[in-house]
């Protein structure tokens, strides 16, 4: 449940997916992510980011997944995805 700060730019043009050891549980506010390998828990704090995370593997790039979800504030979501990538919740597909 620690706060993570992203060190790298998130590659919006790559294809991403949830790490195979990560489970996603939906909650009314968004979702919980749990990584069975690192034992880390993360929170997705709105339903749009849940939709984006779920759709990532179906898109050739994260940018396309964000567009499909109708996201306009790309920067904010890109930062959130970067944090998830840093904590190995997301990996390149």
């Amino acid at each position, binding site marked *: *449940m*620690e*706060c*993570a700060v992203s060190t790298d730019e998130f590659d919006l043009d790559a294809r991403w997916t949830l790490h195979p050891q990560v*489970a996603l*549980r*939906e*909650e*009314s*506010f968004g979702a*919980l992510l*749990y990584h*069975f*390998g690192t*034992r880390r*828990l*993360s*929170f*997705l*704090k*709105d339903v749009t*980011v849940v939709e984006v995370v779920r759709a990532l593997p179906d898109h050739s790039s994260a940018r396309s997944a964000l567009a499909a979800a109708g996201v306009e504030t790309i920067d*904010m*979501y890109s930062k*959130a995805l970067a*944090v*998830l990538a840093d904590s190995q919740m997301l990996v390149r597909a």
Partner: protein
Amino acid sequence: MTTLAPARLVDQFELGLAAPICLTWELTYACNLACVHCLSSSGRRDPRELSTRQCKDIIDELERMQVFYVNIGGGEPTVRPDFWELVDYATAHHVGVKFSTNGVRITPEVAVRLAASDYVDVQISLDGATAEVNDAVRGRGSFAMAIRALENLADAGFSDAKISVVVTRHNVAQLDAFKALADRYGATLRITRLRPSGRGADVWDELHPTAGQQRELYDWLVAHGDGVLTGDSFFHLSAFGQSLPGLNLCGAGRVVCLIDPVGDVYACPFAIHEKFLAGNVVADGGFEAVWQHSDLFTELRSPTTGGACARCSHFNACRGGCMAAKFFTGLPLDGPDPECVRGFGESALRVEREVPKPAVDHSRSIPLMVVNRPPRRRCDENPLSEFG
């Protein structure tokens, strides 16, 4: 934490979740030790203990609800003959296991087995960094037993065991020594708060850290907090200044709960009392039904006003502290924590109050004495002797 919306996660958590984040499951009340501060007043096995099948049914349900892991404890959970079978069943069903043990069954063979699993965490309980301090609370020989378990785990290549310490008046000065002990075995230190729950109610007055020691503990946590786990135990200390890592709220019935060995569901591991009993997994239609619909949990998830604490400038930091600590010291639930850092708990404790009696007690009584007296009649030995 992934932050997007400005809404505070804590506010969401106060309203409860679809499933707990942190579920404690005491598998048995049986224990080889008799620690003076045992939260669950363990000792004797309860004859109504859930069967292997019933435990597996609970695991199936936890898998469906996506409860990612369970914290298994007791009693001493490893004394259940089906303990390893249940651990394997849980991990095979996507429910990770963290279990707490005094080390009694962590032989070299078991350690090798544990080292081979990716989804099992082990927590060895130790309440003193020396045998003298530890054994005074946990019983003679318990320090050596815990150290042997840590050695066996380290020798087997088990990485990152946890050493779990309940902070008391007598070991608070040993925090650095505990850290060194953890480092020696490649383990992580986990420290938690002494609760006046179970047999802890009988010793809390003498064992809980003094006001000065609480400050020491807070300073130590601020300095070392990153490498030390606390299970969110010390959120009441956040009122000293900066907030400690973690959620900083009472998660009882909201993000946390306890399943006891007979399937009773309580709001938190420190609240084994009928006042905090939400239901039973067998009698009330399963765990999910109790978690989502019990009257008690619905009530705990309604917004709190803060009562007497609401006007305190630190209320946002400590949220009134620990419900169980208040209840078992006979303090009102909407007032200050008995260890309130501003001292409001201490003054509340000086007022006449009624401390609730423990509702569930599996402590072993005084050992039975063998009476060595010759039989006076033949039928004292065998009631059927006259009918031979």
